[in-house]
């Protein structure tokens, strides 16, 4: 389709612009909100003319939220730290556990293999609340309530199936002959796994890791039930902005901007892996 006419180009541009506006408008709107006070946000009719302030951001970073009803302690930065901690550790643990497991499921036929793989996937079917009631009881007994370890463990329900199933597909796409060739050339099983299988599945591992990170970052319900304020991530922490003196829209908006920045940056950085990674399974090189 090299011979596109001028009209086609214009229409295509318009269509792309429309899609971009549709998807980016909420983010742009929230960004604008984050630079305003509650009064300017809530005035009617809404207006784009306002003096930008950074009070919302300073309030979040210093942890002092001033409202009409007085000053309020915020631990948003602690929430932020929790989010990073929980997401990074969960994904790391999932990769350590999931990549070798994915390899096993891809390469070896073993008894109940498919059943185990499916069971792991089925963790994604059940509503989280269904799992949470028994889990919260167990966690109390085990003393895991409100611990990072407990949360990271539960987050495996989100990350592990994702990584397992995506990465498995990549391993299946690597010709076993390539691994055989490396072994016959005189290398151990472990060396073959680390020098051949993992590097060749890298785009898939990156894509799966990124997706798992986003899902972990956005999770709300696990930490809401199983942890208290000092271990909760931003998704739960945002509830603090619903205060006695009203909803702090400006701070919420600023919190959203801060909390989506890491995932957005990561996604932008890794998008080439994502595209390459998610499509490689379909089109073999």
């Amino acid at each position: 389709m090299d011979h596109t006419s001028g009209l086609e180009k214009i229409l295509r541009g318009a269509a792309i612009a429309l899609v971009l506006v549709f998807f980016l408008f909420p983010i742009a709107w929230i960004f604008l909100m984050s630079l305003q006070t509650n009064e300017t946000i809530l005035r009617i009719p809404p207006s784009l003319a306002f003096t930008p302030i950074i009070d919302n951001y300073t309030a979040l970073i210093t942890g002092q939220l001033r409202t009409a009803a007085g000053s309020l302690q915020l631990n948003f930065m602690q929430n932020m730290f929790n989010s990073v901690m929980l997401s990074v550790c969960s994904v790391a643990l999932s990769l350590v556990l999931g990549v070798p497991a994915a390899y096993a499921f891809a390469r070896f036929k073993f008894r109940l293999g498919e059943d185990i793989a499916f069971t792991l996937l089925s963790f994604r079917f059940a509503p989280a609340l269904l799992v949470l009631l028994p889990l919260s009881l167990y966690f109390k007994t085990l003393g895991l309530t409100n611990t990072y370890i407990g949360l990271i463990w539960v987050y495996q329900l989100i990350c592990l199936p994702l990584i397992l199933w995506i990465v498995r597909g990549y391993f299946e796409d690597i010709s076993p002959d390539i691994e055989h060739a490396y072994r016959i050339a005189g290398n151990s099983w472990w060396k073959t796994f680390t020098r051949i299988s993992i590097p060749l599945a890298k785009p898939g591992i990156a894509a799966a890791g990124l997706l798992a990170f986003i899902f972990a970052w956005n999770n709300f319900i696990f930490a809401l039930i199983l942890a208290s304020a000092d271990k909760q991530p931003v998704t739960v922490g945002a509830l603090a902005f619903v205060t006695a003196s009203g909803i702090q829209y400006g701070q919420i908006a600023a919190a959203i901007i801060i909390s989506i920045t890491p995932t957005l940056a990561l996604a932008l950085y890794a998008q080439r892996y994502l595209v390459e990674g998610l499509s490689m399974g379909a089109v073999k090189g």
Partner: protein
Amino acid sequence: MSQLAIKSLSKTYGAFKVFDGLNLAAGGGEIVVIFGGSGAGKTILLRLIAGVEEPTAGTIEIAGHDVSDIAPEHRGVGMAFQNFALFPHMNASENIATPLRAAGADESAVSACVAKVAKLLKIDHVLNHSPRELSNGQKQRTALARALAASPKILLLDDPLRNVDAKLRFEMRLELPRLLRQSGATVLYVTQDYKEAMALADRIAVLANGAFVQTASPEDIYTRPATLGVARLFGDPSINTADAVIGTGGGAHVVLGGTRVPLAESYAGFAGREVIFGVRPEAVEIGSTGVEAEVIAVTPLNERTVLLLQNSSGWEFLASLPSAAAGIPEAGSRVRASFAAAGTHIFDRQGGERLHG
């Protein structure tokens, strides 16, 4: 003592039996071609020897030692795969160096050895290329170089010329025997191209229906095929066959389309036997005696011309004559065809084995 010995080797996948009770011994430096059609289990046999799959029963001995419990990396074999199986994230040079590095050679020795084997295989100009940037022929040579690099005692080549173009295949067919001899390794070479098999082999082992049907020199395989199946696999165009019954009145003979075709007297012992009469197209002689036939088609193929003939009872057969020969008949003409004894084989109609006349 043979360098490689396979003893009553069997492999089954579930209920599917690939082969059963294979025996084969190859001496040092010998080139044995494993020949068979698709799905005969040739590749699986190589995988078993390399150790990347395990046999269901039987043993494999390398230099007199049972290697059943030895991991592939310690068996000291080199293998080239049909699909090349190059490491896509390493360049050609690193690919070739893999077995040398794994053996712990120091870097100067590695690069010297890579340079030497690359020069031998004429890929020294593409050593920095990644596999993606190589042509199929270069890929195949790189794979071969990798298999040869560490001078393994046993070299397993799985149809290495399958995925290269016809011209290169022809060149490699000429080059490979010298190359393989130079390596001094015992070579098991898998192919389903009979010309390749004949060109390379010291011995050919024909694998069909889960067993070695015949293991013999290329000449023996061609001139004394053990079964009709083997006779059909070797030769292009393939052997002509016709159902017949051996008669003895006035000397051993068969009757084809009302014409007596005399056989060596030694076939008299098989009188009355239902057989398949087989004759190689090259052994069909056009002359003044023999089976009357009509020439249906004439196909010149470079140095030979192939005639499609049909006798009065409808039996179609091929004759392959030297194109230079005088008096090649035209399509539509009627000729008489006789059959040279050397290219004529009689097979049992039930079992398909060749009857020794």
